[in-house]
C-alpha cells in the first residue's frame, strides 16, 4: 500500500485515481494530522463536508465516471479566499462571522478538478505581517519548533503542508507571504507572475501586488497545481494568459544565473550566508554561468513597497466600516462613532498601522511625494528587471535574512519585521514569478530557503530552472 506520509500531490492524485488509495483514506489521514498538530494553530476551521465529498469522489472513481485531474486530493486554503457557504475571516475579528457568498476563481478551478478543500488556514490579519503572529485567532507556530514563528502571512498554509495536514495549500503573496513562510517551514512556495492567477474572491490586501500561489512539498507539485490555477478570468480584468513555453532548458550547464550585488551585500552579513554561498558553488560546478548584477534601484524597493501596499490596503479595507459585516462597536451612537469605534476595535495593531500609513501617503499634499514617487520607483524596477532578464535566465537569492525567528521577537518593532521582506518584495513590485525552495537548516535546526526568479510570464521556465536547481539540492 502507498504511504501517505510526505506523498507528493502528483503521486497522490495518481494513487487515488488508480484506486491504490481512496480519497476518504487521504482525507482521514490529513485530518488526523490537523488534530495531532492542533497546538500549532495552523488551521482555523476544518470543513465538515470534506469526508462526504471524498466518499462521493471515491464512488465516482469506482464507477469509472470521469473525474478531474485532482480528484479526491485534499487541500487547504488560506483564510482570505472565499469558498461559497463557508466562513472566511482573514484572521480578523471584523470578518469573524462572514460567510462567503461566492467562490474565489482560484479555489473554484481546483474544485472543478475534483480536489477537496478540507480546511482554512491561519494567517496574519488581512495578510499583513511576516510571522503569523498578527492573527486575531492566535499565532501559528512553526512546523519544526513551537517557540518559533511560522512566518507569514501564509503561515498556516505552509505549516499545514510541512506537517501533512493536506496534500498542498494555497497561499497569497503580496510581499513574500508565500515564499517566506515556505522557507521558514521547509516547503516549496511559488508566487506566480502577477495576473496569471485570478484574484477574484481573494480578499484584497494590496490589489496591484497580491497573487495567489501554491505551497507544496515539491517543485513538480507546484507546477502541477499551478497548471490548474492559472488562466484568464472574466471576473478579473488584470488576468493575463501564460505564453506557451518554448524553453528548451534541460541542464544547468551554460545557464546564466544572476545575483544582485545589492542583495549579496546584505546577505553577506547574515549568519546563514554560507548556505547561500554553497549553492552558488554547486551551481558553478554544474556549469552554470553566475553573473553579478549591479542594481542600485534594489534598495528603493522596500520603501516603495511600504508606501504602495499600505496605500492600497487603506482603500481596500475601507469597506470594513461597521455598517456591513460583523463588528459594529456597541457604544457607537452616530455614524461617525460607528466608523471610528468599530474600526478601532475591529482591526489589529499591524492593520491599523498600515491603514494610517497608507492614508497618509494618499492624502492631498503628500500623494505626489509618496504614492506617485513610489509608483515611479516601481516602474524603474520593472524596467531594470526587463533589462536584467535580457542577459540572465534567472536570478537567485536567499528567501529570507535567516531562519524563522522566535515568537514575540519582532512584534514590538514593526520596521524590523518589515525588513524581513527585504529579499521578497522585488518580485511583487516587478510582477515577476519567484519560488522559494528548501535549502538546508540553520545551526539550531530551522529550515532555510533559496529563491529563484525569472522574467514576468516566464513562470514555466522558472519552474524548470528551479527543478534543475532543486535536483542538485535534492529537493
Amino acid at each position, binding site marked *: 500500500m502507498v504511504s501517505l506520509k510526505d506523498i507528493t500531490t502528483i503521486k497522490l492524485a495518481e494513487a487515488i485515481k488508480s484506486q491504490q488509495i481512496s480519497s476518504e483514506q487521504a482525507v482521514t489521514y490529513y485530518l488526523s494530522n490537523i488534530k495531532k498538530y492542533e497546538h500549532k494553530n495552523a488551521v482555523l476551521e476544518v470543513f465538515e463536508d470534506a469526508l462526504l465529498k471524498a466518499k462521493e469522489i471515491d464512488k465516482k472513481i469506482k464507477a469509472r465516471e470521469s473525474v478531474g485531474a485532482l480528484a479526491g486530493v485534499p487541500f487547504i486554503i488560506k483564510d482570505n479566499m472565499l469558498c461559497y457557504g463557508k466562513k*472566511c475571516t482573514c484572521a480578523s475579528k471584523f470578518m469573524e462571522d462572514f460567510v462567503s457568498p461566492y467562490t474565489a476563481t482560484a479555489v473554484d478551478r481546483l474544485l472543478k478538478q475534483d480536489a477537496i478543500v478540507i480546511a482554512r488556514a491561519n494567517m496574519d490579519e488581512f495578510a499583513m505581517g511576516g510571522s503569523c503572529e498578527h492573527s486575531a485567532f492566535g499565532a501559528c507556530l512553526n512546523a519544526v519548533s513551537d517557540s518559533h514563528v511560522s512566518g507569514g502571512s501564509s503561515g498556516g498554509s505552509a505549516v499545514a503542508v510541512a506537517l501533512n495536514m493536506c496534500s498542498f495549500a494555497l497561499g497569497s503573496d503580496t510581499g513574500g507571504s508565500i515564499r517566506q513562510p515556505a522557507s521558514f517551514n521547509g516547503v516549496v512556495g511559488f508566487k506566480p507572475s502577477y495576473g496569471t492567477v485570478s484574484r*477574484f474572491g481573494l480578499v*484584497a490586501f*494590496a490589489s496591484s501586488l497580491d497573487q495567489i500561489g501554491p505551497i507544496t512539498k515539491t517543485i513538480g507539485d507546484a507546477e502541477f497545481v499551478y497548471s490548474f490555477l492559472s488562466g484568464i478570468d472574466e471576473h478579473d*480584468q488584470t488576468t493575463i494568459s501564460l505564453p506557451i513555453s518554448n524553453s528548451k532548458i534541460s541542464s544547468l550547464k551554460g545557464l546564466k544565473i544572476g545575483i544582485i550585488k545589492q542583495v549579496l551585500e546584505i546577505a553577506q552579513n547574515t549568519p546563514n550566508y554560507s548556505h547561500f554561498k554553497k549553492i552558488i558553488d554547486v551551481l558553478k560546478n554544474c556549469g552554470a554561468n553566475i553573473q553579478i548584477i549591479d542594481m542600485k534601484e534594489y534598495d528603493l524597493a522596500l520603501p516603495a513597497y511600504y508606501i504602495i501596499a499600505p496605500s492600497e490596503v487603506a482603500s481596500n479595507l*475601507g469597506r470594513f466600516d461597521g455598517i456591513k459585516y460583523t463588528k459594529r462597536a456597541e457604544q457607537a451612537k452616530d455614524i461617525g462613532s460607528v466608523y471610528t469605534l468599530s474600526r478601532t476595535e475591529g482591526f489589529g495593531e499591524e492593520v491599523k498601522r498600515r491603514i494610517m500609513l497608507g492614508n497618509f501617503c494618499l492624502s492631498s499634499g503628500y500623494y505626489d511625494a509618496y504614492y506617485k514617487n513610489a509608483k515611479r520607483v516601481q516602474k524603474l524596477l520593472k524596467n531594470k528587471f526587463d533589462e536584467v532578464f535580457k542577459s540572465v535566465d534567472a536570478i537567485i537569492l536567499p528567501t529570507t535574512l535567516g531562519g524563522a525567528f522566535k515568537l514575540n521577537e519582532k512584534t514590538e518593532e514593526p520596521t524590523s519585521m518589515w525588513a524581513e521582506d527585504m529579499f521578497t518584495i522585488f518580485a511583487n513590485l516587478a510582477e515577476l514569478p519567484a519560488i522559494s525552495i528548501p535549502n538546508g537548516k540553520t545551526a539550531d535546526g530551522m529550515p532555510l530557503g533559496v529563491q529563484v526568479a525569472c522574467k514576468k510570464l516566464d513562470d514555466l521556465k522558472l519552474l524548470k530552472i528551479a527543478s534543475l536547481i532543486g535536483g542538485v539540492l535534492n529537493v
Partner: protein
Amino acid sequence: MFSDYEVVIGLEVHAELKTKTKVFCSCKNEFGSEPNSNCCPVCVGMPGALPVLSKEAVFLTIKAGLTIGSQISPLAVFERKNYFYPDLAKAYQISQLEKPICVGGGIKLKSGKNIRINRIHLEEDAGKLIHKSEVIGTFIDYNRGGVPLIEMVTEPDISSAEEAVEFLTKYRRNLIFASVADCKMQEGGMRCDVNLSVRKKGDKKLGTRTEMKNLNSFKSVQRAITYEAKRQIEELEKGNAIRQETRKWDDNKNRSFTMRSKEEAEDYRYFPDPDLLPVRISEKTITKAKAELPELSEQKRERYVREFSLPKYDAEILTNELDTALLFEEASRLTNMPKQVSNFIMTYVLAKKKERDNLSVFDVISADNLAYIIKAISTNELTRPNALMLFDMVCFTDKDAKSEAVKSGFISKLSEAELESVVDFLIEQNAQAVKDYKLNQVKVENFFMGQLMKQTKGKADVNKGRTLINEKLQKYKN
C-alpha cells in the same frame, strides 16, 4: 447694488447612463425594482469581488462627449475616490480624475455665448439610504450602487440662473436625443451641483466660491442660484467675507444652508484603481460612436424646416422633446402630411400631454392612431368635430382609433339604398338649389354634400355620396 456685481457659475452635472447593466458588474441597471434585488458581490462591495468595466458604459460616455464636441481620450484611467458613507459599499467610488474619457467641448446658448465644458468622466453611482424612523432606523438599497453615471463639468462661464437653465436644458436634450441617458430628474437620473461666486464688475480675480449639491430639478437650480448670488452679494456689501463651503439647498424653505466648511472638506485620497487597467479607446471605436450618433435636436429642427417647410417656431416646438419629434416623424411618414401632423401635435397632442405630467406623447397617442385621424380628416372619412371627439376617446388608451370610429358611428354605415333615399329627399326639399345647378354645378354639389353630411350626422360615405349627388343632378344640367 446687485447691478455692480457679476455672477460666476460653474456646473457639475451627473446623469445616469441608459446601459443594460451596471458599470462594473452584470446586474440590471433598472429603476424602481424591489430594494436590493439588482445586486451581486461586486456592486455591494463584497470582499474579494472585482470590477469588470462595461464597454457599453464607455461607449455611451463617448457618445455623450461627441454631442458636446469633446475630445475623446485615447487612454482613460479609473481612480478610486475614498470616503466613508453608508451608501458607498466599498468606502470608495470608482471614478476618474486625471484622465477622463471626454475632454473639452462646449454648448452654445441662444445669445451666441459659448459655455465651455471641461470634461465628462464615467463613474459609479452609490446606493440609496432609506430613512424609516428613529425607532426602525435607516435601510440601504444598493440597487443604484454601481449604476453608471457620467459627470460633466463646465468651466465657470455661466453668469445667470437663466443661462444655467438654458445650458442644462440643451445638455439634457443632447443626452436624451443621443439615447445616452433618460435624465429623468424626478428619479434622480440627472443631478446638478452649482459652484458660484460673485465679483465686482470689471474685477479680474474670481471671488470665493460656494458649492451647492444635488439639485434635482431645473427649478431648484434656478432658485438656488438666485438665492445664493443674492446672499453672497449681500454678505460682501455688509463687508463680510464669503466662506468657501458646501451648501445644501432646501427646496421647501427656499434657501440654502451650510453643509460643511472648507476645513471639514473630505480628502478623497484619489489613486488609480489597481483592479482596472487603463482603458484604451481606439479611433475605430470613436468612429463607430460617431456613426451611430442619432440626429440631435438642433439637427432635426433644421431638417424639419428644410425638408417639410415647417415654420422655425413649429420645428422648435416639435424638437424640444425627443418623443414629440419621434411622434411627428412617424406620423408624417405614415400620412405624408407633415404640416397637418405638426399642427395637430402642436394644437392638441401637446396640450393633452400637459394635462398629465411626465408622460411621453406616445402615452397620449400612438403614431398609428394619430396618422389615422389626420388622414381621416383630410379624406372626410371623419368630420373634424368627430375626429376631435375620437382623439379624446383614444387618448391615453390602447384603443385603435379606426375601430373606435366605426364603433361610435363616426364612419358611414348607411347602405347605398339608404344613401340614395336621403339624396332623393334632399333634392326634393331644395328645389331652388336644383334650379341653380346649371349656373354653378360645383357650388350646388358642395351644398348638397354639406346637407347630406348634416342629415346623416356624418355617417354618409363621402365619395359615394358625392358620386350619387353628381349622378342625380345630371338631368338638371340644362
